[in-house]
C-alpha cells in the first residue's frame, strides 16, 4: 500500500560524477516494495516532488536510491546528511512483476539514471535462479556507477560509454544486438534509448520502465500519461507504470 512515509537518511555518498547513492530507512515501507517502484520525494521549498527509483532494499528497512544532481531539487537532495529526515510517497507505481520469472535468461538494459531500478530487479531475478546479463550504458567514464554491484549477481556485465572512455564504446543497443539467446529483457533509460531497444528486439518479451514529469505521483492529476495502442488509450506512468510491457505503450 502506498503511503506518506518519513525516512531517516543513513548515508549519502557521491558514487560517480554528480551521482549520489543515498540510503534511507523506514521499516514499514520496505515490506511492500517491488523492483521498479519509486519514491516520490518531497524536497522542502519545491512545489513538486522528485520521483526516484528504488535501487535496492535491505532487510533492515534500508532503501537505496541513486540519483543524479541535475537541477535544483536533486542538488538540494545531494546535500542531505545522515540523520536528516526525508518525506516521500512510497512505494509508488506498479514495479516489475517477476513472480513467475524462474530459470530463464534475462537481459537488463539500462542507461544513465535508468540504471538504478535494474539493480534491485536483477538481484531478485538472480535469486529466482535466472541467468542475468547486464548491459549498462553511461555518457563517459566519470558517470559510470554500480558496475561492481551488478557484477556481484550478473552472469555477465557489459559497461558501455558513449565516448568509449570506459568499457565498450557505443550504445547499449550495439551490445544488445549481439546477444541472441535470451527470454526476456528489462530496460530503463531515456526515451530515445528505450525506443532504440524496443525497435531492435521487437519480437522478444520485454518490459520497459518510463520517465515523465510528474505532479501527484499517485495517478490523480494526469500529468504523466503515455498513449497506448488503443484509440484515445493511455496509461498513467506513476500508477499504471512506470513499468509496461514493451508493446503496450507508444513511445514519443
Amino acid at each position, binding site marked *: 500500500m502506498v503511503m506518506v512515509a518519513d525516512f531517516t537518511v543513513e548515508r549519502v555518498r557521491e558514487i560517480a560524477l554528480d551521482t549520489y547513492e543515498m540510503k534511507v530507512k523506514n521499516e514499514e515501507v520496505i515490506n511492500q516494495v517491488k523492483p521498479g517502484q519509486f519514491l516520490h520525494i518531497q524536497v522542502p521549498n519545491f512545489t513538486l516532488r522528485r520521483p526516484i527509483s528504488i535501487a535496492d532494499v535491505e532487510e533492515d528497512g534500508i532503501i537505496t536510491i541513486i540519483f543524479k544532481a541535475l537541477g535544483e531539487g536533486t542538488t538540494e537532495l545531494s546535500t542531505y546528511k545522515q540523520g536528516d529526515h526525508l518525506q516521500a510517497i512510497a512505494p509508488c507505481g506498479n514495479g516489475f512483476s517477476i513472480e513467475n520469472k524462474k530459470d530463464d535468461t534475462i537481459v537488463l538494459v539500462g542507461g544513465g539514471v535508468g540504471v538504478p531500478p535494474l539493480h534491485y530487479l536483477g538481484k531478485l531475478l538472480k535469486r529466482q535462479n535466472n541467468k542475468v546479463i547486464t548491459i549498462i550504458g553511461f555518457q563517459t567514464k566519470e558517470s559510470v556507477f554500480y558496475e561492481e554491484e551488478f557484477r556481484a549477481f550478473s552472469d555477465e556485465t557489459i559497461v558501455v560509454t558513449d565516448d568509449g572512455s570506459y568499457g565498450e564504446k557505443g550504445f547499449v543497443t550495439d551490445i544488445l544486438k549481439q546477444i541472441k539467446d535470451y527470454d526476456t529483457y528489462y530496460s530503463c533509460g531515456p526515451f530515445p534509448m528505450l525506443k532504440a531497444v524496443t525497435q531492435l528486439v521487437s519480437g522478444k518479451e520485454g518490459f520497459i520502465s518510463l520517465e*515523465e514529469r510528474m505532479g501527484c505521483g499517485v*495517478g490523480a*492529476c*494526469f500529468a504523466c500519461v503515455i498513449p497506448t495502442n488503443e484509440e484515445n488509450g*493511455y496509461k498513467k506512468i506513476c500508477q499504471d507504470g512506470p513499468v509496461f510491457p514493451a508493446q503496450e505503450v507508444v513511445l514519443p
Partner: protein
Amino acid sequence: MNLAVDLPGLKLKNPIMPASGCFGFGREYSQFYDLGKLGAIMMKAATGDTRYGNPTPRVAETASGMLNAIGLQNPGVDEIIRTEVPFLEQYDTQLIANISGSTVDEYEYVAKTFNQAQGVSALELNISCPNVKEGGVQFGTNPEMAAEVTRRVKAASNLPVYVKLSPNVSDIVSMATAVEAAGADGLTMINTLVGMRLDLNTRRPIIANKTGGLSGAAIKPVAIRMIYEVKPHVSIPIIGMGGINDSEDVLEFLLAGASAVAVGTANFQNPLICPQIIDSLPETLTRYGFTSVEDAIGKGHE
C-alpha cells in the same frame, strides 16, 4: 467548533474541498485517508466525450508554483457517471462536478447528463480553460460569452451552478457580475494564470502545449485580490482557491470573502493536506478570534 457552511446545493460540514483536476476522482487519495472527512470534492473536469488531452510534458515547476497543461483529459461524462460517481458516493461528502466543453452545446450536454444522474450536488462551470473558444472568443475572458454559457447550463440543469472564473482578465468584477446576472448560484475563483517556462537546453517551452496554467502559492495574492474585489459586487457565495497551503491561508480567503475554499496544487506536495487543514482550522480560527467559519467570512472588508 462549528466549521459548517451552507451554500446553494451544498451543506458543507467544513469549508475544505480538493480543487478540480488536483484530486482526480478521489480514488488515489482514498488510499491515504477517509474521503468522508472532506467538506466536498470537486471532480476532475468532465466533457461530452473521452478526451486524451495534451501531449506530455504536461507539468513544470516554477518558484512557489507549477504550470500544468493537462488538456481536460477525462473519460467523458457518461463514463464518469457510470464508474466514478458511484465510487465517490460511498463517502459522506458532497460531489461537485466540474464541467467543460469545446462548444456551448457540449457544456449543455454535460450539464444535462449530470442532472439526470444521481449523486452530484452542484456543477462547477469551468469557463476558464484557455483552449475553449467559440468564434475565436474565449468564454472565460468575455463577459457576454460567459453569461451565455451560464444561462444555457442553468437552463439545462436543476443543480446549482458555480461558475469558475479565470484570473487572466482585465476586469474580474465585470466577469463576476455578468455570470451572476445570468443565473449563477455561486462563483469559484480563481483558475490558473497563463504562464510558460523555457528549457534552456532544448530551447523550447518545457510544457508540450507551450503555455500552462500557473497554480500554487505564487498566485495566492492574485486570488485574494480578485475575491476581495468581487465580493462587494455580488450576492452569491464564492468558493476560493489559489495557493492554499495551510489553515492560515484558508482564513485569509475567508476574510477576503470566500465562503469555502478548495485546495489544489498542495495535494501534490502533501497528499494529507486536506485532512490536516481541516484538523487545524478550529485552532487557527480561535487564535484569530473567530468562533466559527461563518463568523470569518468577509471579515476583511470591515
